[in-house]
């Protein structure tokens, strides 16, 4: 399975969809999005001293990394990747992450909040809100501060969630990493203002104008490798509060009477395994995933347990410094 997914041979269907097969006169929809994202990445490389690319190992990160390889070719991207590891990610994500960094020859920084590890913070012992705050938001801020990054790329898209729909492409953060949604810098044309004082930073979202369908379409067209968890196969899961949680390791405490069931499932988004619900599916190839998505009746964030904690919870988390 891993091998077929990671196979980067050109997809025979890709030729039909490849950019250069189109007539000269106009750029296709995906080419336009691609060019806009590349423009944004180059602005960051030119305007900042010490940028970093947040790499969450998911499909959006995969596209982000692919675009970065394109933007700076024949150079390597002039910034490292940063993965904030909560220690509860799917094992396949970690393996995939290390393999990608090695294959592409890019620098990878992995940051774990050691304070949180010492306190034994986890989603089961402390709940998803505390776990996410300590191991994700606080960890991210630690990493940004430790390395003195003045700009950080994220893979967020405006179609994901309501407060994301409001965010600028260059999104200003105070020295304490806060987002001020009511006082964002105007952002005109493609003139991005990256000027900041010492300690302040900018979060940059090159995929702002992409939709979930665009992402999958582009992955298909460009034959971009993604984590195998996106593809359906029989996996051990338990059903909790309507979500299918995968038993990825023996840290998942089984409740009395609970037995993992082997079911055909896949994931639409990836995060910490205890907080990420799977969907029942047999879609094992990219075309099948795309077809399934076109027929879907729920949005991708539904599988994320953390977004449903409170109304406007994403906005609140983002103000605190969450990506």
């Amino acid at each position: 399975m891993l091998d077929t997914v990671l196979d980067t041979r050109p997809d025979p269907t890709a030729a039909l969809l490849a950019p250069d097969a189109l007539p000269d006169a106009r750029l296709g929809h995906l080419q336009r999005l691609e060019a806009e994202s590349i423009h944004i990445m180059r602005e960051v490389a030119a305007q900042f001293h010490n940028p970093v690319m947040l790499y969450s190992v998911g499909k959006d990160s995969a596209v982000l990394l692919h675009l970065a390889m394109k933007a700076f070719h024949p150079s390597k991207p002039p910034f490292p990747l940063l993965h904030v590891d909560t220690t509860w990610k799917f094992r396949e994500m970690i393996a995939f992450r290390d393999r990608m960094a090695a294959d592409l020859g890019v620098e990878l920084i992995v940051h774990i909040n050691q304070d949180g590890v010492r306190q034994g913070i986890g989603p089961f012992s402390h709940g998803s809100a505390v776990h996410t705050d300590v191991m994700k938001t606080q960890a991210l801020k630690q990493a940004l501060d430790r390395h003195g990054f003045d700009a950080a790329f994220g893979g967020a898209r405006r179609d994901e969630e309501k407060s994301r729909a409001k965010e600028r492409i260059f999104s200003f953060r105070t020295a304490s990493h806060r987002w001020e949604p009511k006082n964002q810098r105007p952002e005109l044309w493609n003139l991005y203002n990256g000027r900041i004082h010492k300690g302040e930073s900018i979060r940059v979202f090159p995929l702002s104008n992409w939709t979930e369908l665009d992402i999958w379409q582009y992955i298909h067209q460009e034959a971009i490798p993604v984590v195998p968890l996106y593809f359906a196969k029989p996996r051990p899961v338990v059903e909790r509060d309507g979500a299918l949680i995968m038993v990825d390791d023996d840290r998942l405490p089984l409740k009395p009477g609970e037995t993992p069931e082997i079911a055909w499932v896949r994931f639409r988004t990836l995060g910490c395994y205890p907080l990420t619900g799977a969907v029942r599916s047999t879609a094992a190839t990219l075309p099948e995933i795309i077809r399934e998505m076109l027929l879907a009746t729920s949005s991708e964030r539904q599988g994320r347990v953390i977004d449903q904690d409170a109304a406007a919870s994403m906005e609140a988390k983002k103000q605190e410094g969450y990506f």
Partner: protein
Amino acid sequence: MLKDLDPAATTDAAPAPAGIASAEAATEVQEYLARQNSKDLLRFITCGSVDDGKSTLIGRLLYDCKCLFEDQLASLETDSTRFGTTGAGQLDLALLVDGLAAEREQGITIDVAYRFFTTDRRKFIVADTPGHEQYTRNMVTGASTADAAVLLVDARKGVLTQTRRHSTIVSLLGVRHVVLAVNKMDAVGWDRETFERIAADYRVFAQRIGIAEVTCIPVSALTGDNVTKPSQSMGWYGGPTLLGHLESVDAAAQETLGSFRMAVQWVNRPNQDFRGFAGTVVGGAVRVGDAVAILPGGRTTRVARIVTLDGDLELAVPGRAVTLVLADEVDASRGDMIVAADGRPEVADQFAAHVVWMDEQPLLPGRSYLLRAGTATVGAQVTELKHAVNVNTQEHVAAKHLDLNDVGFCNLALDRPIPFDAYADSRDTGSFILIDRLTNATAGCGMIRFPLRRASNIHRHASKLDKAARAGGLQKPAVLWFTGLSGSGKSSVADRLEQELHRLGRRTMILDGDNVRHGLNRDLGFTDEDRVENIRRVAEVAKLMVEAGLIVLVSFISPFREERRMARSLVEDGEFLEIFMDTPLAVCEARDPKGLYKKARAGQLPHFTGIDSAYEPPEAPEITLHGAERTADEMVAQMVEELRRRGVI
């Protein structure tokens, strides 16, 4: 989205082994994706006054185009009960787009929200922009990238001030397609005359402000009439629905320019054998072998390669992000523009432009800002504010400054020449933003109208003697800039210091605020604009005197950091010493040598620094004098010692 595929193929619940469905899915999806990729994209904004129903309209478009998922609908139902304004049991579609907590609580739109939807014919990105006047800058943000604008008016209210303001911005920002959606037709009994009166009113206004073509459509976002489906209640209307119209307007960026341009973003140098210039192609296509010029320098060469990760291209069309390799070893860096050698833009350091001001701090002519155009960043000031534009009537009104959300027509002067086109010919190369040097805020944006040629006819005369020669080895010329409150002791210390320097055989000159205001600056008052101009002139005079080899003692309140920074920037490093007379306001007021504080407190002297006009103390002055704790002689001695230490004397 459902209609594009046959749901029967996948609704079979029995888990089939992977691979069986795969072949047919591949074909089906491939066809689907080919259709998707050939669709073009229209970006449009919606704007209008508060409560005109913009958010509801977008919610309606998303809802009717089946772009909502079940979980989104479920949370919409919850939210409608909690925040909704449409009554029990009704979905409040506006809640789909008002994403910030404050927006949902207040029921208003504060910032632009971007939404995405697709129909059989086209993909759309819609920017929902705020109606409140205080958030106009956020509307400008949305308009700058839009191909079309949907202006909403409430059928019960007709065209309001906000509609006119938004129309002016839409016109200034060059949005080509304008739709007037007369909303809430259900609330006026679907009345034809109401619609036609509002449409006629608006057409007259639109024509006056230079909007060539307007399409007027009667709609009800609440009921969906004429939004995506023709209205049963308005049989008298024979035009297209709003969505039908948006599907048919020409979305292609109308490039009137026709000539290739590429602002250099980043120089790509992986090793000594490769030197590429990264940027986005605009204006016209570029081919391998094309003759190009590098501006503002003007060197010409040819395109040797167009490099991408997917292989070299023969040709790159506008919109494409590429890396160019040039035939000759030419120097180009970020801020330069590579252009077609036979179709060049203007290159100038002065131009006229419309400016929309977006900062709480007013735009002051003479103040120095950073200007970003393409990838170039230069110092810039407004040299002349020709007029402000009354956005309701388009009348030109005299103005000395621009406040938040004001629109003005100005002349600007830059530190150095940059390449540009008129905004009417190219959004990409005719636009700029202004950045506040202290706060880094994006304070304004501009659309270039035409270059000004005056600078090119005035050539600098290079002199054979320099300032060191003129100083005759007596001293290092310098500006001693005394700043502080009125009555802080600036003038008396400067005066005594000059006497002391004279006794030591040094050549000096003193520029005193009060004295200069009797002559050179007698036409200036005490408003913020005039204070900026006052300092600009004095700084220029001080610079000439430094050229003359003198030690210049400038004694001016000079309350604004930005102007002192500007004065510093006119002379070389080390030639400007900022001396802060740090005497507390209470002490100055108690001294009140000219009786000015008394007058100011009595309200007879408006704009008096320290009383009703701000004083911004220096952040890093070279010398601080504590006027309340030291005698004048002590301070003079401190100064002399400091000047010796710095090698001025």
